[in-house]
């Protein structure tokens, strides 16, 4: 064997190197970067209809949300050209569109662009031009256990006061079987800060004043965060500082949460008997308010966009036109029923009787989406748009840092005052560095 050792090694090396010879990129295909959620997976399955119709092959790259943001940002800013279509959110679309990083989307009359819900269309546009087409949209609302609230002799109206929410949470709190309220606590600008910003908006707070000066040291922020920390600390499940959408979804489906205020998309999961033990015991109400209704519920959309510079812009737009059309929604309904269609994008979906019958949450969801206004989301005027975020490139870093501080306050590691002061300093530093003042 030893005499052959050299030959064996050489053979192994050559065959290994042959195996890694560059795989030539098939530029004729479309490559889509997307997140892994139910609606996107469904689109992936139904793409064969598009492929059969057009002869265009579509490759899917599914990434974790944080990785997707990082990858598409890197790809677009370095003109990497790895993706022809990108799944982006309402935060990125107007910023990237204004920078000229995205192709403008201008579809024919058959697409019926006016059917797209105005809030979604506005949030995905810059200077009146549409840069991303919404695939599904969401707002936030209260999803509560009606059986528990009824048993406690309480009621849950639309837009209740935060004080009422606290009273209801206290009445149904019965640990460890049921916790009064479950809310996001995991740090992240799209995690805890999305929710906390809506609370802060409703308490009359804002991220920046008209001169772009951060306002986290204002009394309104203090009241909002103090209330949030106290509510979740008293009536929330243990370990809330590491809970976000999925963790709470798991708790809710197990029947451990009496109330949950989060993305409207959750309604389709918690009312699905295959996933939820409490599917038939749930009711919905519009988000709570303190001093104003403005910005009390968020607005978000996952949308499809074409990066500027792709060699296949025409084919990519053709795919987006198909995937965000009324016909696509009907195709999903045909295959999986009206309860499974992507929601929050088109008025026609909410006018469809079959959909209204299949989705018990439809009315509440539409009401929430229509009431969210990204251009008027705070009590006092601001220079930014966005409900649960400020649509500027610096916000991501500011939101991440603020999220860590709020999570630390929730965990009891620092006081609310300390957390807000630290977040204010970080925001101030970031804004100065960016040359806002």
């Amino acid at each position, binding site marked *: 064997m030893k005499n052959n050792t050299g030959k064996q090694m050489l053979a192994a090396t050559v065959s290994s190197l042959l195996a890694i010879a560059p795989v030539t990129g098939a530029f004729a295909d479309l490559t889509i970067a997307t997140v892994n959620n139910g609606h996107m997976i469904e689109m992936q399955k139904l793409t064969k209809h598009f492929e059969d119709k057009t002869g265009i092959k579509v490759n899917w790259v599914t990434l974790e949300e944080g990785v997707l943001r990082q990858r598409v940002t890197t790809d677009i800013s370095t003109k990497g050209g790895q993706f022809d279509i990108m799944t982006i959110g309402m935060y990125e679309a107007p910023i990237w569109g204004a920078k000229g990083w995205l192709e403008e989307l201008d579809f024919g009359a058959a697409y019926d662009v006016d059917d797209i819900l105005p809030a979604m269309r506005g949030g995905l546009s810059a200077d009146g031009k549409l840069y991303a087409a919404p695939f599904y949209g969401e707002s936030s609302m209260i999803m509560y256990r009606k059986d528990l609230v009824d048993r406690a002799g309480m009621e849950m109206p639309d837009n209740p006061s935060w004080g009422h929410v606290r009273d209801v949470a206290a009445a149904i709190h019965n640990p460890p079987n049921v916790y009064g309220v479950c809310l996001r606590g995991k740090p992240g600008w799209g995690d805890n800060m999305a929710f906390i910003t809506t609370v802060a908006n409703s308490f009359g707070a804002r991220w920046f004043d008209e001169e772009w000066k951060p306002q986290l040291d204002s009394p309104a922020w203090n009241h909002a965060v103090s209330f949030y920390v106290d509510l979740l600390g008293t009536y929330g499940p243990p370990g809330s500082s590491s809970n976000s959408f999925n963790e709470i979804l798991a708790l809710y489906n197990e029947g451990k949460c009496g109330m949950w205020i989060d993305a409207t*998309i*959750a309604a389709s*999961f918690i009312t699905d008997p295959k996933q939820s033990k409490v599917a038939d015991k749930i009711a919905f109400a519009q988000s709570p308010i303190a001093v104003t209704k403005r910005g009390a519920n968020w607005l978000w959309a996952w949308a499809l966009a074409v990066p500027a510079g792709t060699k296949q812009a025409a084919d990519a737009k053709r795919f987006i036109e198909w995937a965000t059309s009324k016909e696509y929604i009907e195709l999903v309904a045909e295959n999986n029923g009206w309860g499974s269609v992507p929601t929050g994008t088109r008025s026609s979906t909410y006018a469809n009787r079959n959909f209204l019958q299949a989705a018990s949450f439809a009315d509440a969801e539409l009401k929430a989406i229509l009431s969210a206004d990204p251009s008027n989301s705070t009590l006092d005027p601001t220079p930014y748009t966005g409900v649960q975020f400020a649509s500027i490139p610096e916000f991501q870093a500011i939101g991440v840092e603020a999220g860590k501080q709020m999570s630390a306050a929730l965990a009891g590691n620092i006081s609310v005052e300390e957390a807000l002061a630290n977040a204010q300093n970080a925001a101030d530093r970031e804004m100065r560095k960016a040359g806002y003042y």
Partner: protein
Amino acid sequence: MGLVYFFPILWMFLTSLKTELQAIAIPPLLFFEPTFENFTLIQERSDYFKHALNSVATSFGGTAIAMALAIPAAYAMATAPGRWTKDLLLWMLSTKMLPAVGVLMPIYLIVQKLGLLDTRLALAVIFAMVNLPIVVWMLFSYFREIPAEVVEASRIDCRRTRDTIRHVVVPLGWGGIASTALLSVVLCWNEAFWSINLTAADAGTLAALVASFSSPEGLFWAKVSAVSVLACAPIMVLGWFCQKQLVQGLTFGAVK
């Protein structure tokens, strides 16, 4: 102790046979009716075999490159140590302490400029570079155990250094080389950071496939467990068959 080490793998396997609702059950379910729906769903939604092939190619390719560079380097340092050999070895190892994300942008740009984004070649070269310090260290330890007299005597018979390496050092250190290569394959196989960041539709490895099943909105524990079982299975089978060589190589010279 063995059970403690094995428990996470066992739990991953059990979770892969549950429905999403069973996977999140509190208290956790030990007895349940197993289902294979997660495994069928994975193949429906993605091409497991393509990812597995990419993993095999990049792991073995990366290891081949690393070994081709490390064997001569380790031989030189083991048989003719200089004043700075120890420092050089320590410096090489210190590069492992650099967080990968710190060099993400430069490496991404280099790979992009070379037109190698989303190729197995780029991944294999990066895997080789990432593992090179450990591979050199291990080989250095093994080659040092080869008696100096044998190497010296072989220099009389072999005219060129490469013949000495080929006919004497490699055969004598075969156990160590094999175990180092195996360890390198395992490390390459499990590498996720570069696979996720440098691949798209063509060259994604099993690590990238596992990551793609994490969901921002929706339950995914059972599906991620199933895809993790499928990602671990080939390398566990390889490790099982090669465990004798692996243990032999890793303990080589330990009791001298």
